[in-house]
């Protein structure tokens, strides 16, 4: 063992502060280990956040090429812009519609795989492989799947006598097309996390329930669902953040169209920053996104954090 790796004061007679002072050289040494990590975190995360927050109060675009303080002008502009509200609506729609089915099915598949011994690896791989495909390749694949006349999806639909849809080319379906694709892409990832979470559930509980005569659904409703609570909390927060940040597939498949029907906040930031070259507006949008994500994370922790059962004792 390396000397001086965390020896936390635990009770004992010496007053807390005194002990810390005695240990201070070692303590500093411990902090030193954090420096490289903190350095990059500051440089690439916290500083840019502060910089973009400052920029969101500046006018900075093609027509005024130097940042100029303008108060809340950018936010007001967004407030009065229809597209902004449409984008917010799309973002929340995307998140709410895609998260819960993803989480639920990920858990169900994880349970099924967990209970199955034969061919287990095969099932894991077949559900997990979409996560491994690069997003760019997956997006192009789905562009062809969604192709209205030649794509496999519409051909299958019409075999069942269902109407062919315009998918990416129609403002009614474009966001659904993206949600389905994102669902396919993320399911395996969350399934794997749930599968790991399930390994922490005490098997004896199932045996006890089985002896008590509980059926499959009952066992999982009463044991699995509550006990994967911590995992669900993690999955929920990661899923919210991931889905709020969806970008690649939108960029590659619809460019937010038709008529902004599939435009979501991160793509809108990108559009404003790198297509319209309005960095002030783009920064204001970034600030809004950060605030929303922060608020949602705190809200979820506040709501569920304390109620979650961490162990089965």
């Amino acid at each position, binding site marked *: 063992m390396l000397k001086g790796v965390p020896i936390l004061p635990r009770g004992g007679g010496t007053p807390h502060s005194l002990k810390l002072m005695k240990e201070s050289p070692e303590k500093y040494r411990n902090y030193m280990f954090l420096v490289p990590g903190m350095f990059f975190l500051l440089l690439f995360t916290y500083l840019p956040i502060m910089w973009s927050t400052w920029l969101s109060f500046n006018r900075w675009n093609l*027509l005024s090429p130097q940042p100029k303080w303008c108060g809340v002008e950018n936010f007001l502009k967004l407030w009065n812009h229809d597209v902004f509200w449409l984008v917010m609506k799309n973002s929340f729609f995307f998140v709410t519609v895609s998260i819960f089915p993803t989480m639920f099915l990920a858990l169900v598949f994880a349970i099924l795989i967990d209970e199955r011994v034969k061919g287990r690896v095969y099932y894991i791989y077949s559900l997990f492989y979409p996560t491994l495909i690069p997003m760019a390749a997956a997006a192009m694949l789905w562009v062809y799947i969604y192709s209205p*006349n030649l794509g496999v999806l519409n051909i299958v639909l019409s075999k069942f006598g269902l109407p062919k849809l315009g998918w990416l080319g129609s403002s009614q379906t474009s966001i659904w097309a993206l949600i389905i694709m994102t669902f396919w892409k993320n399911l395996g990832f969350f399934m794997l996390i749930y599968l790991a979470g399930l390994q922490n559930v005490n098997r004896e509980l199932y045996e006890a329930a089985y002896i008590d005569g509980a059926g499959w659904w009952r066992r999982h409703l009463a044991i699995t669902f509550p006990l994967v609570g911590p995992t669900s909390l993690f999955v929920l927060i990661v899923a919210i953040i991931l889905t709020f940040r969806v970008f690649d597939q939108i960029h590659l498949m619809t460019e937010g169209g*038709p008529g902004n029907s599939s435009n979501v906040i991160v793509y809108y930031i990108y559009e404003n920053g790198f297509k319209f070259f309005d960095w002030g507006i783009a920064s204001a949008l970034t600030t809004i996104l950060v605030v929303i994500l922060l608020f949602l994370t705190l809200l979820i922790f506040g709501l569920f954090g304390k109620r979650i059962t961490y162990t089965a004792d």
Partner: protein
Amino acid sequence: MKPFIPKGGISMRKTCCSLVFILVAALLFSTPTWAEVQIKFYYPVGVAGPLVAVINGMVEQFEKENPGIDVEPVYAGNYNQTMQKVQTALLGGNPPDLAVVEISELYSLLQMNAMIPLDPYIEAEGGKEFLADFYEGFLGNAYGRDGKIYGIPFQRSTPILYWNKDMFRAAADKLKAAGLDPDRPPETWAELVKYAEILTIREGNQTKQYGLIIPGGWNDWIFEAFARQNGSQLIKEDGVTVTFNSPENLEALKLWVKLMQEMKVCPVLRPWNITPDDFIGGVTAMMYYSTGGMAKIRKTAKFEWGAAFQPKNKQYGTPVGGGDFHIFKGIPKANQDAAWKFIKFMTRPDIAGYWSIESGYVSVNKKSYELAEMQEFLKQFPQMTVARDQLKYAYPKMMAVNYQVIRNAMTTNLDAALEGKKTPEQALQAAHKMIEDAIKGK
């Protein structure tokens, strides 16, 4: 799991040292020492097809002929992505030496004071004589408001009408009954509507074959062509006067809405990049598309097809499209000179001709068409001459500062009208106002 603990200080130091050594060595060897000048060349690929390999081949050829210059071609994505990369590089103070961007971006680049005027180079090459080799239609988008020339045409196109001859023949009886010739494409808007109607095949409530596809995505560009055909335009050459809501434009948009919403002979907003596949796959009898898609169709279509001028209404007319070369400010003079050499090479008759054959773009150099190789090729594929001949009726594409905002306003409102969410009048009014605001920087 056991934590990983390094055994001792020395081995750690050894690892670090060797890592640093490898890094330094890699840096040293990654730059070929023999090249005197290195230039970075950003280019987009705006149409379907494996054009990256073609560009790399041309760059190799150039390096062979100019041993002192090392060109690093950077494939930067589609037109939008390329402009963003250029933009980001400019902001980072590390401009590319040479880039091809979409022609409408010229004013935005000028606004950022990013490019050098090319007049001195052109003077040195013989001034007007040098420019005389280029098609005038393509040079219209190369000049800034100060009258200086900032771009040299490279991958240039116009939209044209592709038509599936087999499908026309299959419907010959019906076409003849309607007084139409099945051996030629429509020449006017009125004919276009008639042909499209007859060529649409329905089965129950499903459309098995469309008469026509006017794709989405770049429909602003094709709409500009319709505006020209009706004797109007979208933004005047000054880049400030917006004429979007003219009655002629309204008539054009109404025609589109009629084709898509009322007659349903043309699918609504078919995505741009899969439209050629629809044509190749026999989903549609006609399509409006860039000439840049021709190489792919030539190589993969298993039926007889033709290319034709876009039908006229009051007149034939089309905007040009594509990308120009630009040389940037803030780089050493030697690099600018090398970049100019590269431009000269790429627009030479034989090279521009080769590029045209491989990609389907129009060769920007008139002399390409005098080469035996090119003439032989055109004998086999007379479709390739259509875009060149259409240049007689070509106008410069609209240009303005904030072009991307304008384009977005156009596509958003066109999309809304074509999906029936706004009336054509509302859509044009809304776009008109948004574009005026964008130009004024509101």
